[in-house]
């Protein structure tokens, strides 16, 4: 097994599409967010929390974070795949990355719904 090159994991298309779809969503969200932020009567805590208190905006923002974390998972995983060759180390890094990103998603939800 030592010198065998193993390829043929039969995945990749889904991640490739998801990475593009999340990128488009993040770009659109950034525009919506910029427009909403500029339309605020004043930059104060009250107007800021009123913006994020809106249910639709909360939903869109949470979706943005999920898109960001899924997008980041594919990008960071590709980095590990390119630069970390020992399989054990790579698998550990994959798991740590997933744990971190899932944790961040929970944290983002907590912050959003606290407002």
């Amino acid at each position, binding site marked *: 097994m030592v010198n065998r*090159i193993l*390829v*043929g*994991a*039969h*995945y*990749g*298309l889904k*991640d*490739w*599409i998801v990475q593009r779809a999340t990128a488009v969503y993040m770009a659109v969200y950034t525009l919506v967010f910029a427009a909403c932020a500029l339309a605020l009567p004043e930059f104060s805590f009250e107007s800021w929390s009123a913006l994020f208190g809106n249910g639709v905006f909360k939903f869109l923002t949470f979706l943005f974070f999920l898109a960001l974390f899924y997008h980041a998972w594919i990008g960071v995983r590709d980095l590990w*795949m*390119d*630069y970390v060759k020992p399989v054990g180390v790579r698998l550990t890094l994959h798991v740590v990355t997933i744990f971190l990103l899932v944790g961040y998603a929970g944290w983002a939800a907590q912050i959003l719904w606290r407002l």
Partner: protein
Amino acid sequence: MSKRTVQFKIYRYDPDRDEKPYMQDISVELEASDKKLLDALVRLKSVDDSLSFRRSCREGVCGSDAMNINGKNGLACLTDIDGLPQPIVLRPLPGLPVIRDLIVDMTQFFKQYHSIKPYLVNNDPAPERERLQTPEDREELNGLYECILCACCSTSCPSFWWNPDKFVGPAGLLAAYRFIADTRDQATNERLDNLEDPYRLFRCHTIMNCVDVCPKGLNPTRAIGKIKDAMVRRAV
């Protein structure tokens, strides 16, 4: 063009004599008939016959004399010598093991090429004359079949540098699409299955160095995009 002298800086490495590679400064006087970089290299070899490089057809068809010319991969036989800034820096194709001087070991490159089964798969009995295509179907193969496997593209691709054992590379993927697009081929599904892999196809990050260097003006990035399109069409 009259006689002129051209300055070179050439990567030299003879594993039997040199401990490590070095760059050699050398100049050569060219005759009026010397037009291409390959002419100058042949002239140079008549002065120093230890200089090693591959060449054969000297007209951009065999793909033997691919090398890194002033930092960009290309064919010596298609490159005008007078258009190059001097000293002309020549190195072997990047990312492949060097056998000697400008000669690289292409085993890995051809291994990837063979992995996509670069031949028509059709299990029907052979017709009396030929397997016909419509002109439109044949048109799709233009820009794909012309590849001469010089390896300029794959050896300029960072994804191929990082994973030459797993990523097929632009030349192999261009050939893969040539058979996926061929209406006479019956193994389209198997071909797509073979490439549905995070390394074999999806290591391409559309850097497009391949398009930039191809001496035949081909576009592997477009072919790779069409393979992805075919996978999407199959999946959704």
